[in-house]
């Protein structure tokens, strides 16, 4: 038996640790632990609810915007504020820009190197590479000369002995299966995506002033539409946004999707690995007729249980017996004891660390072992994220979802069951980016139309002043972050925040076991993942990364005596 330790990411994207056991080349047990905490819920108490978006925005700088969006919606829900249609559309545009950017960065910069062997690209034939590239896409950067120049630069890069960010990867590991030419295409697009991601972020800069962490506003957005003013949202700004969205769609259609479909056929065995729970949940988002009109979301909401796509269960975030958080295995205490589950409106966040004193080698996974609470929906563990959204859309019979999913399944010639896997999760993310890039342009056209029709309203400030609020108010705001279903619950008393709770995608996916010992998504998906070489646990990275953990994780490997034999940084 070999013990493995994965050490990444905060509650949202900081420091998460996974301990796992390997027997006969397969993972037999895994534990997920969050090892960094900031207690933002406690910091929010007693503050102005209109400021909450700024505080919680700082939960994560990678999926920047999503917490701010959930937060202003929670406050607007509590205070019964209806925002103007243009503000809804601008928020949708920011959502789309964020989603597509995050997915592209994830695929190329955080996930691709699990599948693409950079060193193998040195052996590629540029002419053949060009032929392959041109056969899968119209993307203009595809001449033999382009790939040959890139390869020369790459060769010098490798010969310098200074591999920079590519240093010390598992290059040459037998689990890499791509031909050299496809590896070279992957490297080329890795670099192109790094340039492109700076551009799409500008949608946030135009509407929110900066990226990361653009500004939001309770009641709408702060960026006034002003066709007669150089500093407002005017024709030039709108044209700029339109161009950025079109370029994003082109990048997804001509680079991301073709690459995904070119790489996947070499890894079809991963269509049967890393499936995990089989329970999926989406809250839905991207309203076409107002955020409160849940039936008209582009992303429908719902729950799928045990991979049964024939039935969609409804989710009610206000019902106090649906979403509950447990702390049986978390470093917290509840006034009512460790066995109870609390709905977030009644949530408590009181730290109580009982783990080993650092420095330590192992956590005591028999007892409390994480700073993440364990959320459950009607007692069930849930996977959230692009795969959950695509499956809920597919199972709801939405034509757009069926079209892209069926297209991918037939292109790869795999059955629908292949979706429940590491490969399915990675493919779903790309297909989602394709949908969202298209929807972004639809929302853009609607915004232009509204303005054409004379509606330039961007904020409803009727209830902006605290003296207009009721003595007590409760609200919930939800969205779909790139990594899954996200909701914030707020209780406002005497114009101040009395309680604030976030239940975030990583909490669903990465949380520790519940009181019955049932695992959450990460722990379940890692089970049965094969590991060819414990010194190079590439396969673990593949499954963990398929969930899109934002940041570097460190995996420590131990042999039976607990001797430290390896440590792996996971990107």
């Amino acid at each position, binding site marked *: 038996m070999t013990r493995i330790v994965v050490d990444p990411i905060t509650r*949202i994207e900081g420091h998460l640790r996974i301990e796992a056991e390997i027997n006969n080349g397969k993972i037999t047990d895994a534990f997920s632990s969050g090892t960094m905490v900031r207690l933002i819920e406690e910091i929010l108490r007693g503050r*102005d609810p209109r400021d909450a978006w700024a505080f919680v925005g700082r939960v994560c700088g990678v999926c920047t915007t999503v917490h701010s969006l959930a937060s202003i919606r929670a406050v607007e829900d509590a205070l019964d504020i209806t925002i103007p249609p243009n503000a809804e559309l601008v928020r949708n545009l920011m959502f789309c820009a964020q989603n597509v950017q995050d997915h592209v960065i994830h695929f190329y910069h955080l996930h691709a190197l699990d599948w693409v062997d950079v060193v193998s690209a040195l052996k590629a034939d540029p002419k053949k590479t060009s032929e392959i590239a041109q056969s899968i896409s119209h993307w203009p950067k595809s001449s033999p000369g382009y790939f040959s120049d890139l390869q020369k630069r790459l060769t010098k890069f490798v010969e310098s002995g200074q591999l920079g960010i590519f240093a010390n990867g598992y290059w040459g590991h037998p689990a890499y299966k791509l031909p050299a030419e496809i590896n070279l295409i992957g490297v080329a697009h890795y670099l192109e995506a790094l340039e492109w991601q*700076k551009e799409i972020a500008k949608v946030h800069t135009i*509407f929110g002033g900066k990226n990361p962490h653009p500004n939001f*506003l309770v009641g709408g957005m702060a960026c006034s539409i002003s066709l007669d*003013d150089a500093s407002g949202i005017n024709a030039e700004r709108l044209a700029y946004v339109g161009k950025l969205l079109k370029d994003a769609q082109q990048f997804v259609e001509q680079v991301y999707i073709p690459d995904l479909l070119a790489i996947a056929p070499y890894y079809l065995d991963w269509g049967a690995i890393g499936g995990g729970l089989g329970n999926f949940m989406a809250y839905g988002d991207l309203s076409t007729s107002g955020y409160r009109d849940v039936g008209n979301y582009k992303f429908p909401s719902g729950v799928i249980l045990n991979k049964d796509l024939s039935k969609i269960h409804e989710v009610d975030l206000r019902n106090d017996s649906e979403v509950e958080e447990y702390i049986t295995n978390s470093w917290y205490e509840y006034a009512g004891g460790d066995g109870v589950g609390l709905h977030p409106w009644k949530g408590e966040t009181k*730290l109580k660390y009982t783990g080993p004193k650092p420095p330590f080698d192992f956590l005591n996974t028999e007892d409390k072992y994480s700073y993440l609470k364990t959320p459950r929906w009607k007692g069930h563990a849930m996977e959230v994220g692009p795969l959950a959204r695509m499956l809920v859309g597919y199972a709801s019979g939405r034509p757009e979802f069926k079209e892209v999913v069926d297209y991918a399944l037939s292109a790869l010639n795999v059955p629908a069951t292949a979706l429940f896997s590491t490969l399915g999760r990675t493919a779903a993310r790309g297909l989602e980016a394709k949908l969202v890039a298209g929807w972004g342009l639809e929302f853009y056209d609607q915004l232009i139309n509204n303005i054409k029709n004379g509606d330039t309203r961007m904020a409803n*400030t009727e209830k902006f002043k605290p003296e207009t609020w009721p003595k007590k108010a409760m609200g919930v705001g939800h969205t779909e972050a790139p990594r899954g279903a996200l909701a914030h619950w707020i209780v406002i008393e005497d114009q101040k925040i009395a309680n604030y709770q976030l239940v975030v995608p990583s909490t669903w996916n990465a949380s520790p076991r519940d009181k019955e010992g049932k695992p959450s998504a990460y722990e379940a998906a890692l089970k049965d993942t094969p590991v060819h070489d414990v010194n190079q646990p590439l396969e673990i990275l593949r499954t963990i990364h398929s969930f899109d953990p934002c940041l570097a994780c460190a995996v420590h490997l131990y042999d039976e005596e607990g001797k430290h034999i390896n440590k792996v*940084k996971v990107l």
Partner: protein
Amino acid sequence: MIIETSTKRKTYYEELSEKGYSRRDFMKFCTMIAAYMGLQSSGVAQVAEALKTKPRLPVIWMHFQECTCCSESFIRSSHPIVADIILDKLSLDYTETLMAAAGHQAEEAMHKTMKEHYGEYVLCVEGSVPLGADGVYCMIGGKSSLDILHEVADGAKAIICWGSCASNGCVQAAKPNPTTATPIHKIIKNKPIIKVPGCPPIGEVMAGTIVHILTFGTLPALDSIGRPKAFYSKRVHDSCYRRPYYDAGLYVESFDDENAKRGYCLYKVGCKGPSTYNACGVMRWNNGVSFPIQSGHGCFGCSEESFWDNGPLYQRLPNIAGFGIEATADTVGKVALGVTAAGIAAHAVVTNLRKGKMIDNLISEGKESEQQLKED
């Protein structure tokens, strides 16, 4: 303070030409960086010369209590060579966020740099360090972030604190600071420290700070609280294109009102530009596309110490003595930081009403002329 590296490595210019950049690209980059650093045109030659001849500077980049917005901002730097210089080839010997999977090799790379370049490497820190409960609120690989910081700071020549977390504790240090989140300068006392605050800092400011060290082998000139003067010596208020409206007493009264559509001053809806030192008004964000004020929201002072506790976002700044346009960070900084909104009477704006009337008139005259033209 001179930073030199002992190992013979390729110079920046050699590296860049090998990566396929032309001399013209290289000079363009030097010009941009020189401009960022506020150098006169003669400075461009210095930058170019330094980048042509200086060997690589080893850098170790750590993450503690943070949200990674600083790293994200960094890769948004507008000039492609910035990414090349800093991300991959030229200085980053170790970064958990950016290097490919290489656990014990990564660890080795860090220790190798710490050993071989002892006293020479620059340590970049993103995030604050929680001192509460013996450091258990932030643990990496079973070690507390406090122990890791001490270990890696030991051989550093200098420390760059990226962003507000490392510079002043940022959001997790806001009251009641439950984890005792602590900025780096309060833990490490025996090293030169540069603070680059902001939530996050502008990407090009981050690049500019590093390039200054690469170029001159010295730390940039710092103000009294350790921030590079090049970027933090002016208030957002003094470099704001809406400043004339402030002086003229023309304000947005509530978001999205007629005055907001005219782009008037955001002071009354809570803009903290008058008490914030940063380069947003000059450099703007994401390759100069916009900055918070241009997009209609007040500055909320994210580069200032304890800005989360300096009164609610939408509350108008109280009147603070010594707030003339000529005031500098050195004289006002400490005064401004101590101010909270609680209990201070709302400040009666001193305005140049005549100027306000004049601008108002000009605007309405413009509208009349437009009407006239339509009728003609």
